[in-house]
């Protein structure tokens, strides 16, 4: 059977992975204070040790608890286990598993500690440990911050290795041979005679053995699967329309719902008249939800139509109604009262002894929507004893709590089946849509309700990326950048997000300066300070979070100063860089792009360097200034994520990150008028279309660094490389996102 057919043949277990007559393996459970969720489902006589691998006589199931938004982690988690377990690729089922504190994310906590990722000093190390322990106590299961690989890289391989060694012991016992004489391949234990025993045939014997712990992991040089081209498990079903996304889930007896709440976010509903809607074909009922109304019908489109037939009287927004007032508030935030934190202070930027003319620059980046192509949706069924939820979500254990709060029950009364997502980009970190579905279902107990947002509702209630500005003061003299003083004022997306679920996040928000204070330049005088703008429109983490805007501010500022100093933008950055592994990334992109080579008369190129989630990313963009507008011709990017586990997926994700970064930098913004987002569909917030897409060359630099995720890091380097290239081609310096306010694009 072809590999494609084999992969396509396997079922994906989207419900629970029941263990019957088998065994679950692993070593991490030993040190894990949280109960193993698979153990709860085990029957008498079954041994269950670990939450990631089960083997029964019927088959092998791997649990991939990190949510798949399109980044391919469903497949990559399976590959980590399969590598050590010697599984034939695709010869197993994979499940997202059930929400459980056992799946707490080891990497999210340490990533939240406010230290440079390249700082391995004692305080950062201690604080990362404290943050990690806090996340463990919380039992925080989540996907975000490009943390899936750092979280999974060791523990999933260890689970696979433990399973392999325990299966070998079972084979030794059953067949009367020595463990040392056994090897494993293609989901089989190979006996000294050459006979191959399927793992599944050893499940029962393995169930009687204690799992083998502390197995040494294979060196990268021994990998057979990881680091080599492999077929992502979800590719065949996604290419044949056979993958079930959250929006495709069907539950017997299900009704279809749509919702409308005040487009002035969190504003009041003063009143409404639903009499016309209630009389429309297929409408089951119209019910109230917090801040709005839902229609329940027998078809999603009929629910959409009925919503349009309701007259609403909406109250005002809690934030300034007009966009200009949002900008005014940001601009007024560079004050002592709103000072949040100082992150970097080399030399003394205020010293009168710095000779040379000063340059003052102002940069800004507006709100941007997330808008994954699959709109927000959730199915909820409420009964007298509990609730069941089917949805795609990045924070499963938190979702249980949020739904329980909404329904005034306990989290253990809520069952959640996570689903494949049609993108997220941070959108499915929010809980509003799930709580709304729960509110509707609570008014019709026993009936599962599928809530689907219209695209327009999704735009109206997107909590966009932060609005932010930077003020740069630089001093250039004697052909050198003498001083760079960068002040960034921003609303805090992280605290806006936290407040919506009752979390008050103490202290400064280091995301305000992400991608800026991590600039590895040993300038004589270099300062980075953050100012906190009070909450305006609600905002949320947007793919790469703070670095998506502050990386643009910092890198373009550096570019301007280097050019003023008469330096080559690439050579100048290299000369100022004080961290060798990052210099290698920048050197690589210089080689790839043949930096310095002659371009056409209307062409230009720009380079950028931004770190994001511990990943150094260097990028070169080449553009042409055509009569029809700026055309982006080619992009070269080099980055260091440590070992690359799936090279094809790696390239795809990096290219996607570049397209995301460039596309939104070109043309996408959410603006408010009369308290409402002025953009309501993709024709007004388009990002990149295929004809605008450049060739994108990708290179992984391996400095022997520890593993990092790649979902977000390519994004922040793209806007500054584009801005720097546009300057090179046209002489126009664009200091605002989106850039189409200042230049036209093809």
């Amino acid at each position, binding site marked *: 059977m072809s590999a494609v057919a084999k992969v396509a043949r396997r079922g994906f277990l989207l419900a629970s992975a029941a263990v019957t007559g088998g065994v679950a393996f692993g070593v991490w459970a030993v040190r894990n204070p949280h109960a193993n969720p698979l153990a709860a489902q085990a029957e008498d006589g079954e041994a269950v040790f670990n939450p990631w691998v089960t083997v029964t006589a019927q088959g092998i199931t791997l649990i991939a608890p990190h949510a798949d938004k399109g980044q391919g982690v469903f497949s990559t988690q399976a590959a980590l286990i399969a590598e050590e377990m010697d599984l034939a690729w695709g010869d197993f089922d994979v499940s997202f598993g059930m929400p459980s504190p056992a799946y707490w994310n080891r990497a999210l906590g340490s990533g939240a500690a406010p230290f440079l990722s390249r700082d391995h000093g004692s305080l950062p190390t201690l604080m990362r440990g404290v943050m990690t322990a806090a996340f463990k106590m919380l039992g925080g299961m989540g996907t975000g911050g490009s943390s899936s690989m750092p979280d999974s890289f060791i523990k999933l391989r260890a689970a696979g290795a433990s399973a392999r060694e325990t299966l070998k012991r079972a084979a030794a016992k059953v067949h009367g041979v020595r463990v040392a004489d056994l090897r494993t391949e293609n989901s089989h234990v190979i006996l000294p005679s050459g006979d191959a025993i399927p793992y599944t045939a050893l499940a029962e014997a393995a169930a009687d053995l204690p799992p083998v712990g502390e197995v040494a992991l294979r060196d990268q040089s021994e990998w057979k699967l990881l680091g080599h081209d492999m077929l992502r498990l979800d*590719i065949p079903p996604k*290419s044949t329309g056979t993958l079930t996304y959250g929006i495709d889930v069907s539950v017997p007896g299900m009704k279809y719902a749509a919702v409308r709440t005040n487009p002035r976010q969190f504003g009041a509903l003063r009143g409404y008249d639903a009499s016309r809607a209630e009389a429309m074909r297929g409408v089951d009922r119209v019910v109230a939800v917090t801040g709005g109304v839902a229609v329940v019908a027998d078809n999603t489109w009929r629910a959409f139509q009925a919503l349009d037939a309701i007259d609403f009287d909406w109250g005002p927004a809690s934030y300034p109604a007009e966009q200009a007032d949002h900008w005014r508030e940001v601009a007024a935030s560079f004050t002592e009262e709103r000072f949040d934190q100082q992150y970097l202070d080399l030399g003394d930027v205020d010293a009168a002894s710095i000779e040379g003319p000063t340059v003052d620059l102002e940069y800004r980046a507006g709100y941007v929507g997330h808008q994954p192509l699959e709109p927000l949706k959730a199915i909820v069924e409420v009964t007298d004893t509990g609730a069941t939820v089917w949805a795609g979500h990045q924070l499963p254990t938190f979702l249980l709590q949020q739904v329980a709060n909404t329904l005034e029950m306990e989290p253990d009364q809520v069952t959640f089946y996570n689903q494949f997502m049609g993108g997220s980009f941070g959108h499915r970190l929010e809980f509003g849509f799930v709580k709304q579905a729960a509110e509707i279902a609570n008014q019709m107990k026993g009936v599962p309700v599928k809530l689907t947002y219209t695209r327009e509702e999704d735009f109206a209630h997107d909590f966009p990326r932060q609005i932010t500005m930077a003020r740069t003061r630089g001093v250039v003299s004697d052909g050198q950048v003498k001083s760079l003083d960068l002040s960034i004022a921003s609303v805090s997306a992280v605290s806006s997000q936290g407040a919506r679920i009752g979390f008050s996040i103490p202290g400064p928000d280091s995301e305000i300066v992400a991608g800026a204070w991590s600039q590895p330049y040993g300038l004589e005088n270099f300062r980075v300070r953050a100012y906190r703008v009070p909450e305006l429109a609600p905002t949320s983490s947007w793919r790469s979070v703070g670095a998506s805007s502050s990386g643009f501010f910092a890198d373009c500022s550096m570019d301007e100063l280097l050019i003023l100093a008469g330096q080559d933008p690439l050579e100048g950055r290299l000369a100022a860089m004080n961290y060798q592994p990052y210099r290698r990334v920048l050197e690589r992109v210089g080689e790839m792009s043949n930096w310095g080579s002659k371009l056409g008369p209307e062409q230009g190129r720009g380079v950028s360097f931004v770190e994001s989630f511990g990943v150094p990313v260097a990028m070169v963009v080449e553009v042409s200034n055509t009569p029809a507008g700026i055309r982006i011709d080619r992009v070269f990017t080099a980055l260091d994520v440590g070992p690359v586990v799936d090279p094809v997926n790696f390239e795809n994700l990096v290219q*996607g990150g570049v397209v995301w970064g460039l596309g939104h930098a070109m043309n996408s913004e959410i603006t408010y008028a009369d308290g409402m987002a002025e953009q309501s569909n993709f024709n007004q917030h388009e990002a990149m*279309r295929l004809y605008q897409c450049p060739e994108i060359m990708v290179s992984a630099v391996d400095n022997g660094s520890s593993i990092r995720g790649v979902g977000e890091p390519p994004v922040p380097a793209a806007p500054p490389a584009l801005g720097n290239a546009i300057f090179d081609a046209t002489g126009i310096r664009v200091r605002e996102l989106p850039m189409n306010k200042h230049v036209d694009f093809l």
Partner: protein
Amino acid sequence: MKLTVNEQARDIDVEPDMPLLWVLRDELGVTGPKYGCGIAQGGACTVHVDGKAVRSCVLPVGSVTGKVTTIEGLGTPENLHATQEAWIEHQVAQCGYCQAGQIMAAADFISRVPDPTDEQIDRAMSANLCRCGTYPRIRAAVKTAAAKVREG
């Protein structure tokens, strides 16, 4: 009302202005075509009517007279269409939500333009939005699919 979907005759009882997309998804349980924007701006809902790519989110079912083919009817995991084969070889999908529509648009395109230039591909495929940014792979897969069709 009668509708032929993936070679099967189906009876439906809906108002004629209901878009084909919602008939397929909510009335017939054919979920390969996706809801993305509802105003023909994204293309995730693309299906074929008599082999021609159409936006099912804005096409009233009452106006459909031909045979409807969705991604599920184009080819199956056991019997892939050349376009699907190419999409798998190039591992195009990330979230994959737009890809059913991309594949349906591409299959129609290469049936009409069997040896497309880069410019023709750009023009034909730019109405299909991909938020994940898989465009470089879509371009490559369209070329591979066209070559497969040409070579039979």
